[in-house]
């Protein structure tokens, strides 16, 4: 379908063809558009429409129950000047992203390296380690986490064996975010699988040559594996930063829906949800969504700019 579309585009771009063929191409293009129509309909009705509507709403005091009126940039100003909880949520989310993403990627890379060494039953291990990624964002796991790290949870039971009396990890404001970071790190499977694929791309001959030259394993890792893997690391980094900025389920379930204790797990998206659906400040929530979009777009932009200095694409040098 894609092919036929680009074909028909090149036709309209100027090559004169016999009219019969031209009509045939047109029909093919039409067919393509008919097939694409449901998707376009979905895009405009379900995605683009609401996105534009939310931009408009972010400049109003829309409450969900009543029509809003235009308030200009008030929502945006209030966010940064009067709303302590907004700043808290920004702080909590930033800590979460900054700590958990590098940890998760490091962990994923480590396991990928271990698995790449020609282990028997590789696909089995790969599936096992990938499993948490599928489950990590789920409600069931979040509930399990709450039990695991509760005052009388399994984790404390294990600590008790060593004579340590652990706190209520998920319900203590000092440790609650830590448990969520751990949960995120635990979902290392997705980047691991991508790392594994990346490692397979590195020609074995490089290592052989390095071995002949007497390079140690560590040296090989630093000089061959790491540089050639940077595009993959970069890809994973961008993906995980975006994903973890939007984390919601973990904090919603583990904290019982309010970002507690004492706002220590108040993720940005959770606060957005509380504003929109609990305080009926949908206009404000819409503004928060746009700020989040800008933050993520900005970070991704910075990531791309910085990538020039550390990402090595084999073909550019």
């Amino acid at each position, binding site marked *: 379908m894609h092919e036929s579309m680009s074909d028909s585009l090149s036709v309209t771009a100027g090559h004169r063809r016999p009219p019969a063929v031209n009509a*045939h191409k047109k029909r*093919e293009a039409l067919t393509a558009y008919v097939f694409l129509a449901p998707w376009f309909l979905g895009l405009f009705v379900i995605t683009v429409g609401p996105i534009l509507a939310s931009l408009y709403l972010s400049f109003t005091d829309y409450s969900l*129950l*009543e029509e809003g009126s235009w308030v200009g940039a008030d929502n945006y100003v209030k966010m940064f000047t009067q709303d302590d909880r907004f700043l808290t949520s920004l702080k909590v989310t930033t800590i979460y992203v900054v700590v958990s993403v590098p940890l998760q990627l490091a962990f994923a890379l480590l396991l990928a390296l271990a698995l790449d060494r020609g282990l028997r039953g590789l696909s089995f291990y790969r599936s096992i380690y990938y499993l948490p990624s599928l489950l990590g964002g789920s409600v069931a796991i979040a509930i399990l986490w709450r039990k695991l790290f509760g005052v009388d949870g399994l984790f404390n039971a294990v600590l008790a064996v060593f004579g340590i009396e652990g706190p209520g990890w998920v*319900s203590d404001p000092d440790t609650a975010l830590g448990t969520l970071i751990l949960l995120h790190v635990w979902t290392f499977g997705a980047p691991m699988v991508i790392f594994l694929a990346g490692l397979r791309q590195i020609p074995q001959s490089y290592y052989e040559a390095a071995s002949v030259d007497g390079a140690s394993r560590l040296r090989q890792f630093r000089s061959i594996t790491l540089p050639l893997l940077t595009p993959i690391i970069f890809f994973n980094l961008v993906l995980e930063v975006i994903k973890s900025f939007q984390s919601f389920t973990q904090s919603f379930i583990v904290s019982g829906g309010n970002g*507690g204790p*004492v706002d220590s797990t108040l993720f940005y998206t959770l606060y957005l949800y509380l504003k929109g659906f609990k305080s*009926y400040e949908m206009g404000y929530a819409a503004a928060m969504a746009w700020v989040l979009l800008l933050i993520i777009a900005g970070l991704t932009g910075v990531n791309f700019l910085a990538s020039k200095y550390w990402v090595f694409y084999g073909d550019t040098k």
Partner: protein
Amino acid sequence: MSLGSRKKMWTVAFLTAAVMTTASACGGGSGGDGGGSGDKVKIVFSYWGSDARQKLTEQALKKFEEKNPAIDVEGDFSNWDSYYEKLATKVAANDAPDVMSIEIRGLSEYAGRGALADLAGKVPSADLDQQVLSSGQVEGKQYAVPTGVNAFSMLANPSVLEKSKQKLPDDKTWTWDQWIGLAKQISAGGGGAMGAEYNPNPAWLQIFAAQRGEKFYDGNKIGLSVDTIKAWWNISQQLIAAKAAPEPAKSAELLTAGPEQSLLATNAGAMGMWWSNQLNALSKASGQELELLRMPRQKGAPTAGMFLQPAMYYTASAKSEHPAEAAKLIDFLVNDPDAASILLSDRGLPTNSKVLAAVKDKLPPVDQRTLAFIDEIKGELSPITAPPKGALQMEDILKRNTDEVLFGKTTPDAGAQKFLSEANAAIAG
């Protein structure tokens, strides 16, 4: 080839058409249930709760349809956690249920934003408890009819008390200090049980404040003083320091686990504060005959501070296309003994005196005790009015600030100031 592609295009067109007609047929099917069977009017009734409530409600709605063959009621059920999100979204989409269940804290939000219809004169209310009924008014208009009442009270587990060799106190005269003392003795008794546990419901603070002559909500402002809030926190601080109540982290876990997992219900705690309609579930979970007690008092308090709170209200959408039928359903639910004999005390004890007389003997023993308890304290109760907009957030705000103080993240002074400014902002907004 050309023929092939033309054929394909037609196939697509046909398929699309087929899908669209099927979809619209489905839509018509589910939407026009009533439309098919003559001129039946269809109304929607939304409510939240447990599976048990859903079963009872479906039975009651069936009874209503039997009595009113021209009306078809669709029950729109969801659990508590998602109820308001769902309702608000429906109201926003101009698709509000004709009859909506709303609790007192959400009443001003919905009435004030024009979502509710004035029910005065539309739903007969002469036999209802007039004082409780008046709590369904916002700015002088009867937007809501109470389903039944509860009292926020102290519940005690006699078996735990016995194990720690303590006796039930005389709740007519007991003070907060005595209550704290008793809790300490129970915890120190060595039976392994806690004396008390924490419930974040603002009702406790409301009662405590009333005993000091302060209103929780004073018009559109918070009427609490910093001293009162601090004194109230001090109770929890004393209990926690003496290990007579669980530490805050444990409390937080107990709260997310729900009433059935509370210390009281698992026979691991002697006393706790709950709504009287929770007596049933808590008794069942513990297997004990739990006692309903008055809340302790401040020494020399002008009033007991306790109050009857409607468990929830029936309200009608201001935009309903069938206001008469909606009113009829509400009338049935609160005034018809047939409805009450199915619903019993599930939505609080009925306040319609005639209905109550008719179903009294059918109530399970636990409810009869609650009824007797409420009768006993009737003379000591304070009136209640619907709190202002934003009250739905109060429990969260109070709990968050209480946590900050109890976890030692802030001083009681700073915490009280912060609570007041956040709470005032919520109800002003």
